[in-house]
């Protein structure tokens, strides 16, 4: 009897403990899951992961490469009706190593209908290519036009770090838009070991190089009520030298003019898309170490004025019968770079790119392009997917 009582008590206790444990576990897990999920996706949070993926193959007479894969996630968060946070990471391979770069990271505050203020690192509103057309699922060709990147041929900024004031408004039947900014100065590259880049500018620096900040902006005008044509003018002015006596007064003035036209034309039975941009950079007088003999310490100077341009035309036979034709696009781009006179190691370049795209849907394209640039002719195949 005693044994039975002890056994019954033990079972009852175990049951109570297990029930308590179960209840505790469920409550604990519920609360844990709830707290974690609430922390990750708070009620009403407007968060979106978007971006694009690119896979590119290159073929020349002497080499072939299938390795260029790029993944560019864009994180968008709208924590308030008047606030937008946006960040773009550009990831890819350089040789055997993974390369991650911050494309932009900024916060925008909408002051009123006509003005928003953006702070952080943002794509430079210098012309239209970097700000609007550079993502691979938007760019109709596998490559960027000559002169729009931040390489030895680059004329103009890719990104800025600073404050940006922007907006758009109706103007009668037309529209205008503006994007002005105050940003950190660009940096003049004077390292003779990097001869080909000497005299070019590096942008988006976090470190301020002098007491005065750079100012710039773009003004856009859309004369027609259907927004088919946009004309833009951009300007940027600031010091570019370091704080040393030799370079502290070196200044750079940059200009750009851009054109964008997109319309469906009945007489061509299709869509025509034209984009064009002209960039000009004038760096004031500075002395550079002769890159052909850097150890000698010989200095030389030149008129550091350079320019680049591109004109791109695309045609889609959207009014022809048949799905295949409607999804096919023909593209031609002419681009050029004019270096400073007497600069060592740089020559004038003209680039011709012929492309044909097939669009599986609105954000997925298979691109074929042949690019001819002096002695450097390359055939590209690229798959670009926006998500």
């Amino acid at each position: 009897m005693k044994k039975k009582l002890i056994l019954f008590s033990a079972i009852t206790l175990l049951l109570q403990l297990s029930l308590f444990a179960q209840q505790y576990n469920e409550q604990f897990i519920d609360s844990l899951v709830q707290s974690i999920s609430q922390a990750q996706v708070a009620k009403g949070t407007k968060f979106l992961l978007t971006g694009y993926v690119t896979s590119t193959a290159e073929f020349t007479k002497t080499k072939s490469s299938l390795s260029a894969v790029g993944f560019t996630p864009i994180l968008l968060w709208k924590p308030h009706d008047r606030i937008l946070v946006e960040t773009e990471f550009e990831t890819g391979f350089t040789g055997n190593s993974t390369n991650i770069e911050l494309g932009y990271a900024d916060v925008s505050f909408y002051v009123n209908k006509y003005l928003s203020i953006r702070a952080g690192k943002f794509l430079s509103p210098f012309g239209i290519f970097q700000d609007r057309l550079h993502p691979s699922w938007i760019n109709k060709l596998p490559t960027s036009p000559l002169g729009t990147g931040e390489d030895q041929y680059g004329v103009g900024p890719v990104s800025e770090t600073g404050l940006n004031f922007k907006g758009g408004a109706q103007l009668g039947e037309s529209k205008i838009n503006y994007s002005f900014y105050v940003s950190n100065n660009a940096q003049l590259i004077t390292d003779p070991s990097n001869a080909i880049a000497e005299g070019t500018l590096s942008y988006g620096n976090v470190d301020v190089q002098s007491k005065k900040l750079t100012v710039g902006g773009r003004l856009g005008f859309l004369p027609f009520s259907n927004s088919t044509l946009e004309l833009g003018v951009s300007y940027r002015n600031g010091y570019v030298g370091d704080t040393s006596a030799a370079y502290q007064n070196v200044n750079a003035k940059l200009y750009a003019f851009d054109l964008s036209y997109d319309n469906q034309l009945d007489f061509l039975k299709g869509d025509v898309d034209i984009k064009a941009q002209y960039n000009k950079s004038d760096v004031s007088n500075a002395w550079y170490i002769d890159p052909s003999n850097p150890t000698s310490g010989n200095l030389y100077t030149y008129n550091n004025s350079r320019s680049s341009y591109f004109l791109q035309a695309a045609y889609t036979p959207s009014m022809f019968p048949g799905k295949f034709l409607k999804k096919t696009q023909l593209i031609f781009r002419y681009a050029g770079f004019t270096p400073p006179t007497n600069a060592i190691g740089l020559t004038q370049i003209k680039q011709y790119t012929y492309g044909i795209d097939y669009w599986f849907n609105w954000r997925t394209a298979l691109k074929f392009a042949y690019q001819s640039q002096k002695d450097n002719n390359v055939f590209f195949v690229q798959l670009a997917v926006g998500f």
Partner: protein
Amino acid sequence: MKRNKIIVTLSILITIGVVVTSCVSAKINDKTGSQLWTENCRRCHNSPPSSAFTNIQWEVINTHMRERGLLTDVEYKKILDFMQQGD
């Protein structure tokens, strides 16, 4: 000289502001969200269908596109309404 530059700059900005706020055309106001969606998206890229994203996602994307394309306030609101109707 510096003061003159500031005065001229302020005058230009104020003039632009006055002209902009007083010359609001009924043209854009009369357009549907569908029209504005077609006209503005295609300036840079193919127009996505409304089924591509949810209502909340469209709100975030449209705000992002307002930044990129520098859309007017009316365009932003009408395009957003149109895209969210399809969800």
